[in-house]
């Protein structure tokens, strides 16, 4: 049983264990903690890593993703955790290590992890340790495997530090009982998920006077400028669409292509070929009946728009989960049902795409850009100005490093403020 009431005793016990273990972090140098995190990451990333093997095997069994997808995707989740990247993050956001060395102010940080992708526990738990705080890692529904294994792998290298992290699970984001038990010891709650769950959680934290940082729904897009419309760009876009079956909030759902409708169709053809090629190397995972039907609805809508208009609108890149591309009539940012469904929108000028993206800046997270190297900085700056938080070349959208400010928020500086660190 993992409903809120029955999970409450286990959560309560986990909170007590972390609060007991947490003071020992005061004696640790944050640089040593960063090094420990980096070593843990290496233990996962080295060839034949038993941690990775166990995680992939268990997640392939219990979750929706295929084994090759998990092998690639989990690497991308963990790779950012190098010592150099952690040090750069500290310098960027809080000046230097000394800011983390002050005594006192250590609090339990509760992480409510999203259920769309596995492996989400790695970076938040690592950053929590960097702040010499204990962490409660509430897993998402489809990944109850990674957080316990990740914590176990830290324990294997340093049991004292590992004891400051506790994986927990309860069904849903905010059931009564378990959440109360978690909040009882919390100094900060950091959560990702749907807007409704985030609003509910924010309300509950406000009542308990606990700082809350929530990341709600987000959408990402791609932008391909005329001179970059080529097979290499199509392949890069297909990589971004295929990874995690598009379930991540950095997965592009709409691609704006500078050029005519004919150019858009040719580009769609190329992307579709690339997606079809990835169906073997990166097979799609299991889908619920609702997801399967949503995919069919997406294909049906595009196909019938084409039958009505007397032109091809839908590009089917193999089976339903292998890829579906629709050429859109209207210049807009309409989400897809995910699972490798992409809308391609032809725009005469890049400006048109920027206007649309600006309109949706509240929801916009990332934009992958296909453009010549020289032109990238200029376009990237404009996209950041209109509210995109993750602007990178196509093909790297799903590999954010620690410089990505999710939702435009700093990684750790905001946490420091919330838990009262100077």
């Amino acid at each position, binding site marked *: 049983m993992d409903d809120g009431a029955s999970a409450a005793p286990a959560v309560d016990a986990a909170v007590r264990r972390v609060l007991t273990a947490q003071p020992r972090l005061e004696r640790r140098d944050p640089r040593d903690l960063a090094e420990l995190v980096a070593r843990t990451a290496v233990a996962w990333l080295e060839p034949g890593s038993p941690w990775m093997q166990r995680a992939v095997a268990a997640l392939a069994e219990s979750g929706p993703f295929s084994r090759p997808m998990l092998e690639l995707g989990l690497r991308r989740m963990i790779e950012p955790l190098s010592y150099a990247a952690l040090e750069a993050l500290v310098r960027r956001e809080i000046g230097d290590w000394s800011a983390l060395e002050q005594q006192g102010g250590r609090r339990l940080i509760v992480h409510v992890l999203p259920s769309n992708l596995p492996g989400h526990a790695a970076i938040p738990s690592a950053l929590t340790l960097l702040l010499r705080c204990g962490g409660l890692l509430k897993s998402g529904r489809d990944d109850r495997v990674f957080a316990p294994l990740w914590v176990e792998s830290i324990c294997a290298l340093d049991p004292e530090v590992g004891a400051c992290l506790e994986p927990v699970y309860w069904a849903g984001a905010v059931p009564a009982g378990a959440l109360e038990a978690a909040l009882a010891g919390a100094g900060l709650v950091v959560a990702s998920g749907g807007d409704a769950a985030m609003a509910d959680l924010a309300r509950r934290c406000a009542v308990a006077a606990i700082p809350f940082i929530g990341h709600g729904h987000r959408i990402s897009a791609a932008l391909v400028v005329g001179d970059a419309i080529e097979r290499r760009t199509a392949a890069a876009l297909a990589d971004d669409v295929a990874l995690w079956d598009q379930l991540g909030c950095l*997965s592009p759902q709409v691609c704006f292509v500078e050029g005519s409708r004919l150019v858009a169709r040719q580009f769609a053809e190329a992307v579709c070929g690339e997606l079809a090629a990835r169906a073997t190397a990166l097979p799609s995972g299991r889908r619920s009946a609702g997801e399967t039907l949503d995919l069919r609805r997406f294909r049906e809508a595009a196909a019938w728009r084409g039958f009505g208009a007397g032109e091809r609108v839908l590009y089917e890149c193999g089976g339903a989960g292998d890829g579906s591309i629709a050429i859109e009539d209207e210049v807009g940012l309409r989400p897809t049902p995910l699972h490798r469904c992409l809308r391609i929108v032809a725009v005469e000028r890049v400006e048109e795409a920027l206007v649309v993206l600006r309109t949706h800046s509240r929801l916009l997270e990332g934009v992958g850009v296909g453009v010549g190297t020289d032109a990238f900085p200029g376009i990237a700056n404009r996209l950041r100005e209109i509210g995109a938080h993750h602007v990178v070349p196509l093909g790297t959208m799903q590999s954010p490093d620690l410089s990505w400010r999710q939702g435009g928020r700093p990684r750790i500086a905001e946490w420091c403020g919330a838990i009262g660190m100077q």
Partner: protein
Amino acid sequence: MVPVYEEVLAFIDGSSDRRFEDLALAVFRHQVEGCAPYRAYCESLGLDPASVVSWQVIPPVPIQAFKEAILSCGPAERVFLSTGTTQGVEKRSRHAMPDLRLYRASAMASMRAFFLPDVERMGLVSLIAPSALRPESSLAQMVAWAAEVFSDGAMIEAAPAGEPDFDSFVDCLRRSEKGGAPLAILTTTAALIRFIDHARKHSLVFRLPHGSRLMDTGGGKGAPRPMSRKGLLHAVWSTLAIPGYFVANEYGMAELSSQYWDSVIRDRHDGVHRPRALLAKPWLRTLVLDPITLEPIGSGSAGLLCHFDLANAGSAMAVLSEDIGIDVGYGLRVTGRAPRAEARGCSLSAAEARVG
């Protein structure tokens, strides 16, 4: 004059001895020839129309098709729009009808058979927005025809401005109560629930004369609160004194020209005792399909309802709905809607979006 339409009209009025299958295949070929999007669809399937020899294998069009293309075999005499569903903001279906006689003939014959089998005409009151106000509503048009065909006087429009006017509705109920003339109430389920709440709030109770009846339609769309069918029947009895066997749910879709109706009134009239189910006239048949594979599934199992409506001869006869139902042998039970993806995590998907 399109010959196949005349043949369908003859089938509806009972003057034809053609079989459903013959007509269905004739309609199918007419639609392949006359409806360019449907022809393109069949071509995309690699289908030779001549190879289709059974109505069950006629390719159905999904509801999405009515939202994205005009499925008409000729210039439309009328275009009806769907009202949308309870599942979010979506494009509306457009049902273009080149010959309105088919819809009228089918709808009136079904209403006669399943709602008014025992009376020629009676007093009608409607809580549905009038057709003059909502020309795009196929339901409003059906009610307008019902007023012409079945009302023994001028039908009382109790939603003359679109929204139900409960004061005039109550006046109408009181007149029936006092005068002793039974009344047929035509309403959406949502308006009925609103009226039940209104009656409770104002302690209104009516004892309508025996023979009074009620048609409700539209499911929970726009209802102020959910209400079980059992609860609704009980509330209709306690509020209006209309017994359950005179309360008939009509199952219709803007994309169809024919309707299913609750069996209860017809069964009572025929002296048949069996559980309530939805029945249709012989020109509307339905297959229950596995929602994922779209293969037919056995009687008694829930699946996606795929309708074959000869009265849709001018648009698309075979329509794959989004409704889940069960074939109970003598009729259908609609049990819900086809599922959609659940929200998972922070990535915005179309199912969760309220943009665009």
